């Protein structure tokens, strides 16, 4: 506890009161929290849409909705979850909240731009939500907007695409801000290799956001132009090539997967040393593997298109590169586990989430190998197997890392402690629900159930029923976790400044942090995970 009274960033800062005080604030921590509340709401909407789909799939034939509604729902579920939850998720929320503190800075490099990014994000999000209720019904293309279906369908694709374009713009600006911040704002003495690994991950992520997003931006613009002016970029009737759309789309959307997972890996890399009370094993290997993943990650988009009719040459080149990109991820897993060796392990909630992350991420990653392999991908491509795979990566990976980060930094964010017992139970329910929901999808995919199916043959019923039940278990876990945290944020007991014994800079300042982060700018001389 600090002895001198201070004003935390959560308290009113004068000038304006109430909501306006927040909406005009350029403080990185407040912007981070604003992202979190917004993303939290979108996440719940996405989850509810997912549950509706699960109910529909509970038995073959029409259960609660018609096929058009179902197609709209899985599109909206995808658009919300991908563009509004997982892509901004960790970097915009925890990157904003803690990256500047971890590198000993007062704020990001361009605080006003940071606030602008949030407004652009909200504008895009509102457009995305509006696209559901206006025009000719919700878009029904799937979040991938594949041409020429997306240029032909009469539904409200235009607005959804515009929304994705605007959201991409916000993502670019956040990335730009983070790169400049990390280059220019590190505390004196904090060399690149004395920087904690979460900022390292964010740095790699920011480059992807910056350099990949424009490609999807221009692709979506072309799609808009095609729909409005009949230019025919992707419509074969006008000379266009639908496969080119897929190339352009995946040049962005594959790296986007790393926008989700790299910060997640960064979070896990922060949590493991803290709860093992040990320096991270292989600091440099982890830092550089982030850069490697970001770099090679640009060159593997074609593995989403093995069956698209690409040339054989392109297929095997992409397969080869895909297998290469698996290696740096493996290195990270080995280093995490090695960090636990001879540590002094405290099984607290954040660490439990981190363990779940490693396990689920391994399943997601290893099943990814069979999708990267040419022969096996032909079999399971676009089946429920892919659905299971990417939910293991995105939800089991990014989602669980988000929950881990939430429980890890919660005491710092709010200065309050949550009920750890309830948090642990919620974790257990989440973990079981998750596996029950998605594991059957692997089996269904191997049985030959294509994805995005409204109806299915009777042989798939067992798996779908299990999956639906799992969905509800998972939902209970989410509600329990969130309720626990909301109660804690309101009435939880005071949290100490450093509840877990962390070594990075955010644990050296009061909880919740003051507006200026540090009383005196810190000077760094030691390595980030120095437990000597």
């Amino acid at each position, binding site marked *: 506890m600090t002895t001198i009274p201070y004003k935390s960033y959560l308290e009113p800062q004068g000038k304006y009161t109430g909501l306006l005080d927040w909406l005009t604030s350029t403080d990185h921590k407040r912007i981070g929290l604003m992202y979190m509340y917004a993303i939290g709401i979108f996440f719940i909407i996405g989850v509810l849409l997912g549950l509706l789909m699960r109910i529909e799939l509970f038995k073959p034939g029409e259960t609660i909705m018609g096929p058009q509604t179902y197609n709209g729902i899985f599109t909206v579920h995808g658009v919300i979850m991908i563009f509004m939850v997982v892509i901004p998720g960790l970097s915009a929320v925890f990157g904003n909240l803690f990256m500047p503190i971890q590198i000993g800075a007062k704020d990001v490099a361009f605080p006003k731009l940071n606030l602008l990014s949030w407004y652009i994000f909200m504008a895009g999000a509102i457009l995305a939500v509006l696209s559901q209720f206006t025009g000719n019904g919700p878009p029904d293309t799937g979040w991938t907007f594949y041409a020429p279906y997306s240029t032909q369908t009469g539904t409200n694709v235009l607005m959804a695409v515009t929304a994705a374009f605007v959201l991409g713009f916000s993502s670019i600006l956040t990335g730009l801000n983070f790169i400049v911040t990390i280059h220019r704002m590190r505390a004196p003495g904090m060399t690149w290799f004395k920087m904690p690994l979460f900022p390292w991950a964010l740095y790699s992520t920011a480059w992807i956001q910056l*350099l990949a997003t424009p490609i999807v931006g221009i692709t979506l613009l072309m799609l808009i132009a095609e729909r409005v002016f009949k230019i025919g970029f992707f419509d074969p009737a006008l000379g266009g090539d639908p496969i080119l759309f897929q190339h352009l789309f995946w040049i962005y959307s594959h790296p986007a997967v790393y926008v989700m997972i790299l910060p997640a890996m960064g979070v896990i890399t922060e949590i493991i040393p803290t709860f093992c009370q040990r320096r991270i094993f292989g600091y440099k290997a982890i830092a550089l593997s982030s850069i490697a993943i970001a770099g090679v990650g640009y060159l593997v988009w074609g593995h989403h298109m093995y069956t698209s009719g*690409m*040339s054989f040459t*392109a297929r095997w*080149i992409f397969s080869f590169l895909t297998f290469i990109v698996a290696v740096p991820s493996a290195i990270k897993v080995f280093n995490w586990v090695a960090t636990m060796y001879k540590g002094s392990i405290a099984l607290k909630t954040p660490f439990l989430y981190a363990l779940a992350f490693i396990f689920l991420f391994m399943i997601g990653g290893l099943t990814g190998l069979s999708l990267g392999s040419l022969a096996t991908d032909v079999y399971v491509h676009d089946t429920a197997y892919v659905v299971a795979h990417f939910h293991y990566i995105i939800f089991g990976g990014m989602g669980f890392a988000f929950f881990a980060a939430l429980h890890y930094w919660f005491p710092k964010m709010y200065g309050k402690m949550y009920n750890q017992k309830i948090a642990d139970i919620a974790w257990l329910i989440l973990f079981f629900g998750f596996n029950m929901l998605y594991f059957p999808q692997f089996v269904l995919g191997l049985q030959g159930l294509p994805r995005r199916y409204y109806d299915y043959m009777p042989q798939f019923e067992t798996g779908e029923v299990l999956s639906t039940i799992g969905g509800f278990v998972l939902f209970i876990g989410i509600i329990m976790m969130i309720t626990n945290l909301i109660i804690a944020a309101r009435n939880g007991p005071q949290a100490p400044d450093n509840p877990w014994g962390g070594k990075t800079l955010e644990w050296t300042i009061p909880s919740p942090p003051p507006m200026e982060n540090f009383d005196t700018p810190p000077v760094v001389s030691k390595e980030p995970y120095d437990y000597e």
Partner: protein
Amino acid sequence: MSNHKAEHQHITDYWVYGLILVILLALTFITVYMVHLELAAWSVAIALGIASVKATIVLAYFMHLKFDNMLFKILVVAVVMLFVSFILLTFADYLYR
């Protein structure tokens, strides 16, 4: 946090810019003239080659890359390489269909 207020500023003379402009204009006219030479297969390569030279000159002098921080040079090269790899990989598909 380093303040680069007092950073050494390279000031380019006016005549340098004038000279650069003359070179760029000359290259432009060469490109336009090339079209009439019927070089068939080579003309695209030459036109793009000249465009790249022009772009490099603009980057180096007008955009001050030549006198600026090393970081910017590295980043520009990296971005160009990234774009080239996009092109190459896409054409791994289109050229071998």
